[in-house]
């Protein structure tokens, strides 16, 4: 016990020698999936992890006839931990392909590590604009969207509706500013006020009072995670919902609806997908997810499910192997799989070209309140950055 340090060092040195590379042992597809499993955002990680495991169930735990193993890693919402986890997966566990990642800053840090190691990354949430534009890479695919597309859809909808005098609110960080910028790219009407609040703020009574005093026709907000639960609940408690309709992005979804329930009724969101989507692959995903886990999956999960299916299609095309990166890239570009969004098309920057919808929180469904698609806002929408991407294929 006295020589704790020597023991520690010796133990770990021995351990590292003992964990000899077992990669050569048996042919297996190893997928590294990074998400956030601890902390308040862990709920998103849960949706993603559960969706990935459901995908594996649907695939019979095999891709192209070869057994598949998914190794989950926790980035703790920190880019340097994300990098460490990625390196551990690439160098120690020797995964064949990487996937996942919720946050743009973690994604931006991890992608170069993955592409530098000669592997492919299938992003299943973060859609940082540089990756859609200048920093696009043949080894990076996204089954989600570019961050700006969702607020662009909301902006377009409100512009088409001819709504004027909108009050805009978002947290004061990069994603918040991006959402507002994306919104304003399509919404050209009159904005009463743009308010940026402190990250992690819990009490919005002051801001809601200001909002009420300005009497806007509608409000557009972006409040992810716990901030969204707080803002929406306080907005509802202030009795503003009927008077000033609330339009949002990434604020109310299946990760926060269970906490809000009736407080979310009447909220409008823009999204590329909803659990009530009328696509066979999506219906199967949602139904089996509810059956297996007892709750409704959010879009984070749908994207991760798609990611697994995309990887599966690449494995099948390459006769059960992911070893040849160029071949993997070529196979992925074919996107020969049934996506939860229907027929799947790639843009040149390897982000999807997809439809966007207006959703509304309504009474009904197995949880009491559910999001339902109201109308299509964008048909085959491309993001605003692909022209900066110099890839051609």
């Amino acid at each position, binding site marked *: 016990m006295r020589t704790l340090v020597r023991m520690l060092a010796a133990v770990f040195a021995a351990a590292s020698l003992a964990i000899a590379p077992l990669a050569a042992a048996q042919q297996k597809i190893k997928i590294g999936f990074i998400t956030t499993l601890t*902390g308040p955002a862990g*709920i998103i990680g849960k949706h993603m992890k559960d969706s990935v495991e459901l995908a594996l169930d649907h695939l019979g735990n095999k891709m192209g006839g070869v057994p598949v193993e998914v190794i989950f890693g926790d980035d703790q919402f920190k880019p340097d931990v994300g990098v460490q986890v990625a390196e551990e997966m690439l160098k120690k566990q020797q995964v064949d392909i990487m996937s996942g990642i919720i946050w743009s800053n973690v994604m931006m840090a991890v992608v170069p590590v993955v592409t530098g190691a000669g592997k492919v990354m299938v992003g299943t949430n973060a859609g940082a604009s540089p990756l859609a534009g200048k920093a696009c890479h043949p080894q990076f695919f996204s089954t989600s969207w570019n961050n700006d597309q969702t607020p662009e859809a909301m902006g377009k909808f409100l512009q088409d509706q001819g709504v004027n005098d909108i009050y805009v609110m978002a947290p004061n960080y990069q994603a918040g500013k991006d959402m507002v910028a994306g919104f304003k790219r399509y919404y050209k009407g009159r904005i009463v006020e743009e308010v940026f609040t*402190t990250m992690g703020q819990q009490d919005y009574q002051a801001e809601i009072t200001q909002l009420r005093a300005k009497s806007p026709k509608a409000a557009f907000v972006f409040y992810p995670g716990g901030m969204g639960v707080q803002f929406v609940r306080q907005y509802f408690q202030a009795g503003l919902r009927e008077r000033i309709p609330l339009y949002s992005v990434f604020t109310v979804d299946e990760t926060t609806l269970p906490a809000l329930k009736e407080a979310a009724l009447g909220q409008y969101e823009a999204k590329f997908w909803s659990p009530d989507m009328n696509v066979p692959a999506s219906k199967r995903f949602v139904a089996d997810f509810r059956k297996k886990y007892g709750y409704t999956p959010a879009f984070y999960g749908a994207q991760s499910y798609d990611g697994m299916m995309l990887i599966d299609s690449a494995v099948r095309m390459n006769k059960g192997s992911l070893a040849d990166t160029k071949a993997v890239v070529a196979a992925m570009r074919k996107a020969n799989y049934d996506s939860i969004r229907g027929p799947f098309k790639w843009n040149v920057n390897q982000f999807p070209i997809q439809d966007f919808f207006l959703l509304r929180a309504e009474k009904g469904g197995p949880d009491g309140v559910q999001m339902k698609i109201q109308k299509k806002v964008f048909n085959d929408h491309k993001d605003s950055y692909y022209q900066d991407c110099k890839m051609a294929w």
Partner: protein
Amino acid sequence: MNLILVFEQMLNGVQFGVMLFLMAAGLTLVFGIMNLVNLAHGSLYMVGAYLTVAAVQWTGSYPLGVLLGLLGTLVVGMLVEVIALRTLYERDHLDQVLATFGLILFFNELIAIIWGRAALYTSLPTYLQGFIEIIPGSIYPVYRALVIGVGLVVGAVLWYVVARTRLGMLIRAGASNRTMVAALGVNIRLLYTVVFGFGAALAGLAGLMAGPIYAVQPGMGELILIQVFVVIVIGGIGSIRGALVGALIVGMVDTLGRAFLRPLLAHFISPPAAEAAGPALASMLIYLLMALVLAVRPEGLFQAKSG
């Protein structure tokens, strides 16, 4: 800027301040009287919120749920004190910091294992959902008015207990000279456990009041903890009066800053610059305030300990 709006915002500031006071009172008691830095105070806030939500669901009655939640947090607080914190009173502040940080990790994960990581559903009973008109033309949510009321009552009760009762005298005596009080035959250990328990109950009260309006999720305590520390530093460590005044000041400055700083700035500098600077400055406002107070009066506004 109309007067009614300013008045409403001031009410909001008071209400936010009162929530901070409930947390700060417990923390300053424990720090000032028992000389214990308790980072896990936020965890007790979280426990209060969770136990109350569970109790309300179980009993179907809001008042009963609140009572059970409070009692539960009191018990948890005392258990934590007996099991983990007893030996820390004599230790260095930094050891206390590390140990209570370990408690934070433990509680966050325990709650996540029992209740999951998703935010819990909470709602107000219907009779608390309405509005009252405090002055004509300004409506204010009943619940928030209730929070203000409860906070002020608790403040008064606390002051009375500490300043006018025998228990309060024992607490103050124990803070000045622990060994002497023990030598006089008072069971110091029991006293400290009781005090810690009440500090926990206060945090739990803050938590259960926050439940219906804030997100109830693991880690909710840490979000508010740093602001609470700012409050007790401004108010003066160990002083309940300081906690109240400090909390109200911080609540008002923060709320009014968030509401009016940017429009105010826009009068002096160009609107785009105000757009950029306003929010950033508003987030820093309470820290700037604290630095100012410490520069002028390093012990905080009210000094509690005479030695």
